[in-house]
């Protein structure tokens, strides 16, 4: 197979060009052919380079329109990948070495030229070029930015990732001073301006390397902005979690500590209320009655708060067992009826004779239903209705009052902590804790159910609904809980 090497000779001396073409012809062998083209000026050379492909350039540095190393740099800029052998005059070895440092593959003293030397120089330049290209390919393929910096701190090579990181074009970066401290074997952090005005954080590592025959450094630069951000977010999250835990702990401790003095106040007030410390006048009895109600309120508040803390922390034990929802509703309703005998509103219960068993912690569900009935009785004008029905794997329970309803804008936040609606009060000085519905929501979440509120159309009252999974269906999605329940049953 014949190999053709296309040689561009940029040389203004016609005698030397003639000599060169003779040597080139001599150098040709059976399988290796050289095709020589000549131009006499840098501009001519640049024109040819932009129009045609060559394998190698033989370059005289002393041309009519350009002298010295600049000539080489311009050729390199025009055809960055093309190997260049510089032709030097006698006693210009220094220039030749400089040319190599500036990217030439080799230099060839004109006076020592013959066919063998030329062939050797071209072959060597091509082979050396192939090796360098392998190195460049390795560097180009790196997702990290890589910059080759020579010992004069001049950038000799940079891959696309590096140009991207520094936000520069090749010609703005390569051949210029590298503006960062190079400390081998130690990671350094760089702050770089990002594309959209943000600051990138990059980590730079520097190692010594030989680049095209000369000692140099290779700087590897990695964008760690995302990692940094992630680490920062992680630190913030864990800090917040810690402070949340501390806050919960503190509140829980305070709530528990309050119970001891509260128990004393309750006992003392109860003793007076029941005339155990001697008979009270009407006025004294009224005052003690007020104190007694507020002790009750404070007790409820503390208990609700501790309930909610326990539920939210998932420390609550959930004892899910199949039970008959109808029996539970009747039981809670009876308790409510007895406790609210003096209230004007009455409770109606409307459900099919038979409801399927549901899978849940019945004590917890009784608490939910109790809370909802309690709320409803406070706001009802005449009656509260409890309806229950079974559909598609769930039993739905609805507690409806005929009170003023709930402002639409507040329906969504109803189940948040410490939300008390500005609905007209039920009187009797009974005040809610603002935690009841939050507790309901937590309980429903622990029992695989849902809870929500809606208004009866035309301001006819509020309706709270919750669902519970039917026992047979509950076994599949909550297998762990289900198997516990079975083991206990």
């Amino acid at each position, binding site marked *: 197979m014949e190999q053709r090497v296309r040689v561009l000779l940029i040389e203004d001396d016609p005698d030397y060009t003639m000599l060169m073409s003779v040597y080139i012809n001599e150098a040709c062998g059976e399988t290796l052919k050289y095709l020589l083209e000549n131009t006499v000026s840098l501009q001519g050379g640049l024109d040819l380079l932009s129009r045609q492909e060559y394998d190698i350039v033989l370059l005289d540095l002393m041309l009519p329109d350009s002298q010295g190393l600049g000539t080489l740099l311009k050729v390199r800029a025009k055809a960055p990948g093309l190997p260049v052998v510089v032709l030097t005059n006698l006693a210009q070895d220094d220039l030749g070495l400089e040319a190599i440092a500036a990217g030439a593959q080799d230099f060839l003293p004109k006076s020592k030229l013959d066919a063998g030397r030329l062939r050797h120089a071209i072959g060597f330049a091509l082979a050396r070029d192939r090796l360098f290209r392998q190195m460049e390919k390795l560097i180009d393929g790196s997702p990290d930015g890589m910059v080759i910096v020579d010992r004069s701190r001049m950038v000799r090579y940079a891959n696309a990732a590096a140009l991207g990181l520094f936000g520069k074009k090749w010609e703005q970066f390569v051949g210029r001073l590298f503006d960062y401290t190079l400390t081998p074997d130690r990671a350094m952090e760089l702050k770089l301006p990002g594309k959209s005005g943000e600051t990138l954080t990059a980590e730079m590592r520097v190692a010594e390397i030989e680049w095209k025959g000369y000692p140099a450094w290779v700087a590897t630069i990695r964008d760690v902005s995302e990692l940094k951000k992630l680490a920062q977010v992680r630190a913030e999250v864990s800090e917040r979690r810690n402070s949340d835990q501390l806050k919960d702990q503190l509140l829980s401790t305070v709530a528990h500590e309050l119970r001891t003095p509260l128990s004393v106040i309750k006992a003392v007030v109860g*003793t007076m209320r029941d005339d155990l410390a001697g008979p009270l006048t009407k006025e004294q009895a009224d005052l003690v009655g007020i104190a007694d109600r507020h002790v009750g309120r404070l007790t409820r508040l503390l208990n609700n708060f501790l309930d909610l803390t326990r539920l939210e922390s998932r420390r609550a034990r959930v004892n899910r067992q199949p039970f008959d929802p109808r029996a539970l509703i009747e039981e809670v309703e009876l308790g409510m009826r007895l406790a609210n005998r003096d209230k004007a509103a009455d409770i109606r219960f409307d459900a099919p004779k038979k409801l399927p068993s549901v899978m849940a912690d019945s004590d917890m569900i009784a608490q939910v239903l109790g809370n909802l009935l309690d709320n409803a009785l406070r706001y009802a004008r005449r009656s509260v209705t409890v309806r229950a029905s079974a559909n598609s794997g769930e039993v739905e329970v609805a507690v409806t009052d005929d009170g003023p309803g709930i402002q639409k804008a507040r329906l969504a936040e109803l189940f948040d902590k410490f939300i008390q609606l500005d609905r007209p009060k039920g009187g009797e000085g009974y005040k809610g804790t603002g935690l009841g519905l939050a507790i309901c929501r937590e309980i429903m979440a622990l029992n695989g159910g849902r809870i929500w509120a809606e208004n009866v159309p035309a301001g006819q009252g509020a309706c709270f609904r919750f669902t519970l999974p039917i026992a047979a269906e509950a076994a599949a999605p909550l297998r762990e809980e289900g198997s516990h329940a079975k083991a206990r049953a």
Partner: protein
Amino acid sequence: MPKLALKKILIVDDERDLVGPLATRLTAAGRYEVAVAYDGASGLERAMEFRPDVALIDLAMPGLDGWQLCRRLREDARTKGAKVIVMTAWLSPDLGKRAHAEGVNQVLLKPFEEADLLRALETGGASP
């Protein structure tokens, strides 16, 4: 004479302000003979001579605490038949389990309703 029919209740709590009203209420109920102590050690001493039917014990006390007092009562022939009710303001997840293991008959969470206290005193030695 009717005094012989009274149920003997021993209240042990370092919270004197709570012990007073409790004793007043129980005495006023007319069915109980009440003795009190304000720490675990004197509670134990009092229990040996008083031989209560029911011991109402606070858990968090300096020195001999409620759990230890309960154990000592269970170990002594004179008191091991007594019903033990513990009172606490601290509801911990394993409170019920621990109470059961220590031979406590019932737990009352402070603050409690008078009705709950009276019911606890009257019901049999059911475990919590």
